[in-house]
């Protein structure tokens, strides 16, 4: 157990020290949010009842969580695998699963400052007024709901090599962002795209947050879709890990 804690601490320390990575990961969604805010029209309403400013903040939280998780998992993992470090860890006493688990946990950790920063901007400049308990609830909900993103990041890190990781991560970011309705509300899209959006985890991540702020409470359907994604992607990671292990690569 102390071995696992040591490994976890090492990973976190390494993450915190790579301030360039953190600055970009936190800064990108915040800047993106600011750009969208300049188009701020106070009375605008989205998809029936949700005020534009609320939609925008929650969407940027989702987008930020997505970026953070994909970058922390995908890009870093593939770099480490290329360096041979991942394989070296396999010949130390810590169990094989702990490497994957630590990566998912580290990705989840990076999501926290991103959510907080976007919310700070939302509260200061985005015109979003919430009670303290609602802020806390929203943050916790969006954080837990980011789990499938973290697993997706790790899966990408396992599937692609260091050179292709960046383009793949970037493509996923924008596909999931755009088609998940994070840049422009799903209600404004043609019917086919709306259907597609409802199949994406990014849509349901934002939808979960919006339902909470909208007074609809807990979006069970969104939660189920996100849980299903988590399950399928986790299995995919385990499968990939096992295949690599049988080839002696993991």
């Amino acid at each position: 157990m102390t071995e696992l804690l040591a490994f976890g601490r090492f990973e976190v320390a390494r993450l915190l020290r790579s301030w360039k990575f953190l600055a970009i990961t936190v800064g990108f969604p915040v800047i993106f949010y600011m750009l969208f805010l300049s188009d701020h029209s106070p009375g605008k309403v989205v998809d029936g009842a949700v005020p534009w400013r609320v939609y925008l903040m929650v969407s940027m939280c989702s987008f930020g969580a997505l970026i953070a998780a994909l970058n922390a998992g995908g890009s870093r993992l593939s770099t480490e695998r290329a360096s041979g470090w991942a394989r070296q860890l396999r010949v130390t006493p810590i169990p094989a699963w702990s490497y994957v688990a630590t990566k998912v946990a580290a990705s989840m950790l990076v999501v926290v400052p991103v959510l907080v920063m976007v919310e700070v901007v939302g509260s200061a400049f985005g015109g979003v007024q919430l009670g303290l308990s609602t802020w806390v609830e929203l943050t916790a909900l969006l954080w837990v709901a980011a789990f499938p993103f973290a697993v997706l990041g790790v899966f990408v890190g396992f599937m692609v090599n260091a050179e292709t990781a960046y383009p793949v991560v970037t493509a996923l970011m924008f596909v999931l962002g755009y088609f998940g309705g994070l840049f422009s509300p799903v209600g404004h899209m043609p019917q086919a795209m709306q259907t597609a959006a409802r199949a994406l985890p990014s849509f349901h991540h934002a939808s979960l947050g919006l339902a909470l702020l909208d007074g609809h409470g807990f979006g069970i359907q969104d939660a189920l879709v996100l849980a299903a994604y988590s399950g399928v992607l986790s299995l995919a990671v385990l499968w990939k890990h096992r295949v690599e292990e049988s080839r002696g690569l993991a």
Partner: protein
Amino acid sequence: MRFDGVVRRYGKHVALDHLDLQVAQGETVALLGPNGAGKSTTISLLLGLLRPHAGFVEVLGTSARQAVAQGRVGAMLQTGSGSGLPPSVRVSSALQLVRRLYRRPAPFELTVERAGIADLLGRQTHRLSGGQAQRVRFAVAIAGDPELVFLDEPTAAMDVDSRRSFWRMMRQFGAEGRTIVFATHHLEEADVIADRVVVINRGQVVANGPGATLKAAVATRQVRFVTDDPDEVLLDQLEGVTDVVVRGVGVTLNSLDADATVKALVHHGVEFSDLEVTGAGLEDAFVALTECDPTSNERRAR
């Protein structure tokens, strides 16, 4: 450490073909062989990174995985172009982390001293030269104070000086009673460090014995020259000659005693030109060894 009739395939390619191998505690053993002979596969199986398709692998009286999980094994793997180290951290923190993954690690300072990396501790892992990274990876391999260490081509891409100092480190570590198994394709490296050299080719042990024994087995020279109308029967009977290859007017003789062979050529009045005597390459040595009767080699080894 024991290997009994181990078979490992990659698709249709058979990497290890019923390989038998035993290493006693405290021994330093070299796995010598050309690229693709099965050395790395052997080490991967010994570390539990791969499972055998047939046969039996035992490490420190238990399974390979168990031995690794108990922290009794250390390893320096081949990393291709990568450093084998975590990117963008200091050498010291990477080494400290690895120590913490073991229950009874060696003291930090001792590992640093053994691997000779005191001057590298403050460096970032991605700013190390190839040879420096290899020293750090050696430190990583021995940080847990393992009983058994596997080194897969530890001096690949090192220059002569760093290679020699690395050999000194390995010998010292072995002298402390550790078991070391290392893969190499340098005959000299195997000869200088190992108590015993196991030659592997095409997934099988083709020779097994102290370095000197193998050296004798592979101490053949090639004598090459050009002559009109070569007489194969005569050439084959010359002193020292073990093999004759004639291609048109070009003749290649494998000889155990090049001097005697050349004298015999003169003595028999063979008209030759473009005479060339070379030490047989390692590839030829493997051919020589592969053609030997494996059982007779076994006997010589004991």
